[in-house]
């Protein structure tokens, strides 16, 4: 049955082709069936393949399927080929399953939109590209998926293209990630030129055989891949596109900018973990980038008023956690958090979508209030998602995944107390900004009338994702709760286990501290935003407090900086040189010959006898030269 693997990405691609070629002439029901149905079938098939993989694991716990040879030039022989190992099984399931739920949700959520067919076409193309990305057996095919999801992200952010602001956000997302992709591409050049292949498994074997740990080439290659990952996963210093990307429809934010595409960088690093293990400097950089990003994004999230932007910053921050895990060598843990995050962040976005719809496109949390009673259908899923995001002990899946990361940041061979401290502070921030949002938007007095209530096709995904956000953690239980390691045990078939230096006692102690951070954050949010909101309001309205608020609100002024450093000079150059300065030379040449022409045409008087005189004098001169010289 694994032979049918190629069908998993092909089904959504066929869905896209059908929708694109019919070009909006289909009825809404047909579009919904094709759009959601193709991904649903793909999810079912993926589930079946995964079950087969678990029950009858192939030799070496990996299965390769080559569709055809993409090209073959001078030893450069990438294929259109799929590679199934525990890592890609997990990713495939997350993408198809969450993808299907969000498609289902969209069939109702987008129902009133004139671009219904276009929306599902893009969304199907996205799922197909994402599946190509996670299933690719070589880096070039992976890059195909990588760029494909980038394109779909662009198309879907700018889906409502009438508003130029949406277009700007979409272009920003594509261009910024493409800057990272330049690094990725150069990384591919380095890898192929020095190792002679881009097939991931032979490539990793070659790298391990040819490059000693810490060698300059390995470090360069790892840093370049990190550049790509940083762009796609919105990490420092290329994180500025993700908050703006919230201009897209909410299901898009849930699928692309929370659950799947933005975690592609995490997948890439996990996929090429051998390379990063060979380059300790790059791996440390991964950890530092992750730690710095999760803190920065946490502070920014505290100051936003747009419900989707808060969630966007929390996504950046949570991916920071995944990077931190990758950086300390806890590959499987990072993927675990990736999966749990996909569940609860999709849940948060989808319920935020319900809220936004219910309040007639209201994004400002300060104009919501009291939704706990007026819109319970959104409140309960949002609360469950918020609990998971805040990693509230025991009752949320996020607790198990995030606390593993915080623990590994301390105990891993490449971890350090500093990384742990950053992660701990980050955890405090996370629950603070999450419950700030919940307290302001869902508690207090209602400020806006609820006009619409969700239907079944919206509620089914919310319920399923809520359940997963609660029980998903049971795959991975700490020592004092039964020591279950189903998930990491499965992943360790393809990823090495983390070298933990600390024992179970330390783990218990650290988890207690994390639990304290999570609950403490909620308490702080309760005190600061629900009980005494005027404290902070006073603080933020004057002097340093106001400046700091502006600074965090504007994403640590990085947008401003990039605007001055890159965007404006480019526009300036374009404006100044629109007429092409090189052409000035040729225009000068033309002007010169025109001037010469004017000088010479003076002699053309039209008097016949002058011409005759000129001819006579000329022939006399030529004759005298011929005779006398």
């Amino acid at each position: 049955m694994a032979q049918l693997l190629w069908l998993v990405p092909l089904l959504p691609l066929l869905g896209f082709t059908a929708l694109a070629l019919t070009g909006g002439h289909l009825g809404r029901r047909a579009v919904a069936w094709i759009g959601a149905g193709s991904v649903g079938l793909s999810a079912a098939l993926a589930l079946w393949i995964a079950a087969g993989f678990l029950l009858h694991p192939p030799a070496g716990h990996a299965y390769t399927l080559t569709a055809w040879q993409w090209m073959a030039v001078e030893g450069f022989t990438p294929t259109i080929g799929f590679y199934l190992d525990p890592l890609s099984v997990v990713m495939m399931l997350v993408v198809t399953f969450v993808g299907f739920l969000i498609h289902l949700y969209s069939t109702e959520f987008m129902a009133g939109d004139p671009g219904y067919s276009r929306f599902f076409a893009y969304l199907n193309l996205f799922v197909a590209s994402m599946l190509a990305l996670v299933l690719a057996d070589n880096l070039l095919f992976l890059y195909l998926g990588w760029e494909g999801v980038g394109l779909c992200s662009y198309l879907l952010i700018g889906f409502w293209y009438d508003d130029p602001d949406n277009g700007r956000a979409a272009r920003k997302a594509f261009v910024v990630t493409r800057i990272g992709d330049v690094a990725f591409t150069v990384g591919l050049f380095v890898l192929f030129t020095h190792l002679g292949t881009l097939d991931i498994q032979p490539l990793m074997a070659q790298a391990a055989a040819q490059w000693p740990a810490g060698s300059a080439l390995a470090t360069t290659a790892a840093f370049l891949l990190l550049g790509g990952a940083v762009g796609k996963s919105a990490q420092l210093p290329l994180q500025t596109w993700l908050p703006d990307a919230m201009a897209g429809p909410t299901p898009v934010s849930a699928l692309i900018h929370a659950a799947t595409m933005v975690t592609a960088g995490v997948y890439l690093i996990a996929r090429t973990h051998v390379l990063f293990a060979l380059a300790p400097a790059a791996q440390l950089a991964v950890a530092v980038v992750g730690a710095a990003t999760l803190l920065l994004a946490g502070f920014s999230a505290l100051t936003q008023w747009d419900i989707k932007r808060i969630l966007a910053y929390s996504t950046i921050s949570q991916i920071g956690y995944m990077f931190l895990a990758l950086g300390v060598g806890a590959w499987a843990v990072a993927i675990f958090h990736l999966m749990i995050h996909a569940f609860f962040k999709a849940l948060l976005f989808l319920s935020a979508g319900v809220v936004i719809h219910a309040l007639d496109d209201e994004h400002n949390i300060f104009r919501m209030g009291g939704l706990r009673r007026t819109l319970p259908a959104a409140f309960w899923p949002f609360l469950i998602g918020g609990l998971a995001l805040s990693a509230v002990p025991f009752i949320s899946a996020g607790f198990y995944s995030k606390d593993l990361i915080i623990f590994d940041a301390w105990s891993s061979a490449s971890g350090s107390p500093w990384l742990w401290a950053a992660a701990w502070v980050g955890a405090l921030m996370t629950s603070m900004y999450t419950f700030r949002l919940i307290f302001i938007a869902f508690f207090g007095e209602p400020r806006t009338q609820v006009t619409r209530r969700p239907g079944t096709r919206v509620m089914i995904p919310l319920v399923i994702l809520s359940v997963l956000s609660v029980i998903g953690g049971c795959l991975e239980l700490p020592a004092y709760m039964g020591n279950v390691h189903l998930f990491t045990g499965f992943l360790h078939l393809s990823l090495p286990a983390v070298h933990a230096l600390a024992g179970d006692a330390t783990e218990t102690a650290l988890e207690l501290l994390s639990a304290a951070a999570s609950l403490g954050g909620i308490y702080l949010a309760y005190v600061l935003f629900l009980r005494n909101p005027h404290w902070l309001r006073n603080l933020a309205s004057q002097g340093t407090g106001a400046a700091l608020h502006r600074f965090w609100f504007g994403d640590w002024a990085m947008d401003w900086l990039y605007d001055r450093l890159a965007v404006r000079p480019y526009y300036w150059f374009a404006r100044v040189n629109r007429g092409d300065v090189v052409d000035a030379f040729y225009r000068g040449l033309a002007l010169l010959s025109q001037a010469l022409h004017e000088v010479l045409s003076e002699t053309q008087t039209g008097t016949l006898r002058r011409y005759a005189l000129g001819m006579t004098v000329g022939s006399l001169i030529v004759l005298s030269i011929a005779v006398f010289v």
Partner: protein
Amino acid sequence: MILLWLILVLLIGGLLAWLAGPRHPLWSRWVSLASLGVDLALALALWVEAPGGVDLSRGGPWVATLTWSWIPTFGINFHLAADGLSILMTMLTLVLGIASVLASWTEIRERVGFFHFNLLWSLAGTLGVFLAFDLFLFFFFWEVMLVPMYFLIALWGHERRIYAAIKFFLFTQGSGLFMLIAILGLVFAHHSATGTYTFDYFDLLGTRLAPHLAMWLMLGFFFAFAVKLPAVPFHTWLPDAHTEAPTAGSVILAGVLLKTGAYGLIRFVVPLFPEAAHRFAPVAMALGVVGILYGAMLAFAQRDLKRLVAYSSISHLGFVLLGVFAWNLLALQGAVMQMVAHGLTTGALFIMVGAIQERLHTRDMGRMGALWHAMPRMGAVGLFLAVASLGLPGLANFVGEFLTLLGSYRVSVPLTVTATVGLVAATVYALILVQKVFHGRPREHWEAADLGARAMAVMLTLIALVVWLGVYPQPVLNTAHPALSAALTPPARVALSTGAAP
């Protein structure tokens, strides 16, 4: 003989189209279409029946040749030959020829017969350039393709057509003069070394030249081809010519005529003067990289939609220059792939721009916006083409650019990294095109029909080709392979191995 017919069919078709024009415009359109179709069938037959078939890499490089004595006193022969590279370029020429006839079906309404005559003769000249293996004959065809193109721009062009046509003519003619001098210099150098006059390509390969002389002769050829390509800083004729030409003219210019420059570099500059060209390679590669970035930046700066596409051509052909002079097969294959891909995507883009101009009577992007509402099919096509031209993997341009960069990375890391930054610049101009034309707020109210069935058929064919070559470029790569590896091997061995074939 098939090679001669390839050219003759177009010449005769052109005359017939001219004669048919005054009777009924449709006749000359159909005559042109038929002669191009026959030609394409001939070219396909040549490709399929070549030794080794479509996978030319198994046979020898030469598929067909034809030699007639022309002016024996000076060793001038009517010598046509075809290898994989020639066949690829021939097929590209004919496909775009058909596309441009179809694209000007409703656009051209005056002097229809003469228009098609010029179109077909220009294409015939181009085929001659791709097939001629006698330098005299090559130069002859080089001029043949130029003059009809001048008329196409000057007679059926837009507002500043005379300016653009003259500029185009002066640039190409001026640079052609340098090539003529270099050809004569090469022939005389060969004469003084061997005592015989010959213009034959295979005899001139491996002529022993003093390094100094070789460098000057190489520069003469390089200059002509660099103007045609065009490489920065010789590019300024291109935006004007492309912008002012009628749609068919722009398609042929961008898709085919520019390729003659690239073809000349691969066919003549590299094999005839290997040492000199190799010494010159760093400069040429740097020019290529400058072209990639400069073209992309200027494309972004334009307000005129057609100028934007024209500058994007400069950027794309920078990759070709980079690839040819990176001096390895990987990059050279990439360059050829880029030539084909650029021909298809930019040709299609010009057809799209032409269709927009035909409907709105403006090319000013400041007056467009939100055209997706009125023309969803045009929007989807435009989006696809923009995405293809920014180098999305899975489409043909990506294969060309990636192979080029992969090959040039072995030669120069800094140049390759700089060129890779061009991918970001390409993204910027491609997206601004989509934004300004199809997205955003409508600036003026346009009531315009969407792309019709004929245009959609052309577009879908070109799109299918771009996708096909993007996911399976092997036919192109295999076809070009023997020709390219011959171009890179030292000339002495080439002369030996081809001694029997032509």
